[in-house]
């Protein structure tokens, strides 16, 4: 709130100066300067993001056509809807989308509740060793996801894994990577890796909660629990929304963890998640289909995110 007020305040000195000089020149000079400042960003943004996206969109409009035996090289034929229609009828691709939806619906709330809880605990007045807990809960994020997935695949191992070796004492053996559990085994790895990251964002927002508000609550006799629920959480709502949207995008892009765990189980196949499915299409050298799958995924995530924003902003207004 306060930031938007200060930035909206007009700079009075500036207007006086422009009145003395001819009106056009400074404006064009400002816009010339602006180009120098904005230019590098625009060039990079267009070159690295916009152009590849447009290229992927363009590619997705072609159909791969080989000859009868497929040994005579490849033609790409303009057939705008072919890949999209195929993707919508592609059982594996559709079920991969269903899978990450289920994953997101369960994993994202669990992770964010954890992150929020840890952030509130570290932020609370009675917390000790804040630096240690902040760092240690953030540390898993510093481990590359491929490495953490490899580590977890060892922990999950039914015969050599330490978890099952401990369980064996009680006569229990759990195959964490079985058909029923594999998705949740992946969810666990993701939660382990990303809770700390989200916690830091929420924790940073908690630092911005004005001290006088907290003091007022204290004077009014609010318990720490009450303060957290009625003051802190509503005030860090934007940060929670931001982490939610990041997590939704992250779920849609689920790749590293299941890809690594795939080595150890038949429950995870080559098109387990939409990105893996697109990657599998690349491996069979079907670039246009991979592009179409990616575009569909991007559109799906965009729709979801917009819906999410609509829902949350309606409730707040």
């Amino acid at each position: 709130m306060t930031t938007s007020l200060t930035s909206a305040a007009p700079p009075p000195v500036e207007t006086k100066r422009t009145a003395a000089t001819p009106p056009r020149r400074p404006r064009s000079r400002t816009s010339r300067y602006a180009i120098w400042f904005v230019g590098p960003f625009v060039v990079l943004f267009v070159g690295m993001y916009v152009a590849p996206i447009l290229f992927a969109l363009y590619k997705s409009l072609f159909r791969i056509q080989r000859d009868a035996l497929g040994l005579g090289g490849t033609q790409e034929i303009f057939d705008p809807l072919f890949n999209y229609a195929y993707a919508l009828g592609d059982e594996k691709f559709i079920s991969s989308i269903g899978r990450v939806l289920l994953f997101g619906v369960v994993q994202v709330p669990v992770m964010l509740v954890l992150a929020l809880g840890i952030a509130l605990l570290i932020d609370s007045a009675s917390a000790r060793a804040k630096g240690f807990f902040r760092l240690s809960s953030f540390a898993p994020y510093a481990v590359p996801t491929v490495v953490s997935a490899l580590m977890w695949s060892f922990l999950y191992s039914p015969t050599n894994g330490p978890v099952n070796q401990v369980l064996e004492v009680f006569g229990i053996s759990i195959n964490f990577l079985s058909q029923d559990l594999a998705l949740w085994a992946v969810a666990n790895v993701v939660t382990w890796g990303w809770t700390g990251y989200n916690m830091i964002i929420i924790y940073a927002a908690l630092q911005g909660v004005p001290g006088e508000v907290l003091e007022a609550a204290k004077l009014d006799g609010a318990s720490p629990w009450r303060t957290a629920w009625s003051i802190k959480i509503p005030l860090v709502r934007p940060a929670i929304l931001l982490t939610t949207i990041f997590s939704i995008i992250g779920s849609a892009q689920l790749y590293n963890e299941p890809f690594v765990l795939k080595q150890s189980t038949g429950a995870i196949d080559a098109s387990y998640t939409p990105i893996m499915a697109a990657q599998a299409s690349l491996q069979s050298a079907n670039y246009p289909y991979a592009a179409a799958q990616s575009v569909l995924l991007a559109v799906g995530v965009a729709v979801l995110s917009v819906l999410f924003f609509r829902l949350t902003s309606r409730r707040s207004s």
Partner: protein
Amino acid sequence: MKSSIIKAAGVASILTLTVGGLTACSSDSTSGSGSAEGDGKVKEVEVWTWAAGYDEAAKAFNASHDDIQIKYTQIEPGNKGGYDKVRNSITAGNAPCLAQVGYETLPSFVAEGNVVDVTEFASADKGLYAPAGWAGVTVGDKVYGAPQDQGPMVLFYNKTVFEANGVAVPTTWDEYQAAGEQLKAAGVKLTGTYEDYDYSGFAWQAGAPWYEIKDGAWSITPDSPENLDVADYWQGLIDADLIGAGIWSDEWSAGLGDGSIATIVGAAWFSGILKDSAAASAGDWAVAELPQWEAGDAKTGNVGGSLSAVLKGCDDPEAAWTVANWLSTDPGSVDALIEGGGVYPASLAGLESDLLTSGDDYFGGQVVADVFKTASGQVNEDWAWGPGVSTLVGTLATGMKQAYAKEGGATVATALTGAREATESELKQQGIAVNE
């Protein structure tokens, strides 16, 4: 106000992250200058391989040639990202002239139009190679590169464990299963799992093809009646609990090293894997010929093996062939590859290497190359790969993992059927004719 900024940022990042993810993959090739640059001066031929030892071979080539020089880059193994990198570089137009490609993947590269027909330069050198190797580089009647190595299948067994349990070396598959039952009583698993190409070797030996051309269309037949016979045999081993840890897993390596997994049925190049994975059990292992379906037969399969393929966009295929042929046949080059990557050469000159006539300490002094050489002459010749191999084998691996885990009623047979169906639908999607 804040939320609208977040909204805009959110939508922008969604679009860029998700679609950007795809294109990032196709733009990661760094080496700029592509193929042979010939303008009367020294030609440069760029070579990408994953097998170790090529760097030494390339140095030797550069030292002995003035007109052509190799620019060498090591890449990831094909299925671990190497093929993606090669395909991406071809798409981007900055591909090397030569890249290592597995025999099983060559038909897919041909189908994609990613390799160049070099028959006119190569055919004169056909006699320099073992038949299995030459078959590997030929699709239809065209040649696409120089055979580099081959993978005739043999039986690796832990001699110490076999002797301790009074198990005889099996010569037929029935005897192999019986050996497994004996070992089971001693708490030793007969072998690890075979999930993808490793499994295809069994079908290859049995003369049960996965790809056939009939009436101008592909028949995909991994679950043909002959193949189901092979599948039944392996299902029997699974049901009898004779099979241990998953191939390539840490448990598998540990089992090979501590004697709790007694055999590997696999290509000659497993000797190198064994030395790495089970260094602790040096001196325990030995090599025998592959068990047969019928006593007295002498047939084997082939797993793996690769060629130096000439890639699309190479502006001097003749120079590329010269380099590829030299790398495969020059004694010094072959020795570097044998020492570096443990490859089993496909050229006749390579098979005569001194490195392949001496006893191998790891195998208790056995001259294992003699067994490999016998096997390479017994490789079944009626096997051909076709397009869509990566999907076929990838789907098979998933199904086989389920079969070994005995999950959800999965069997070797259902894994093979699943692999066929996935391959058929992929080929049809690309307009290739498929017999059903």
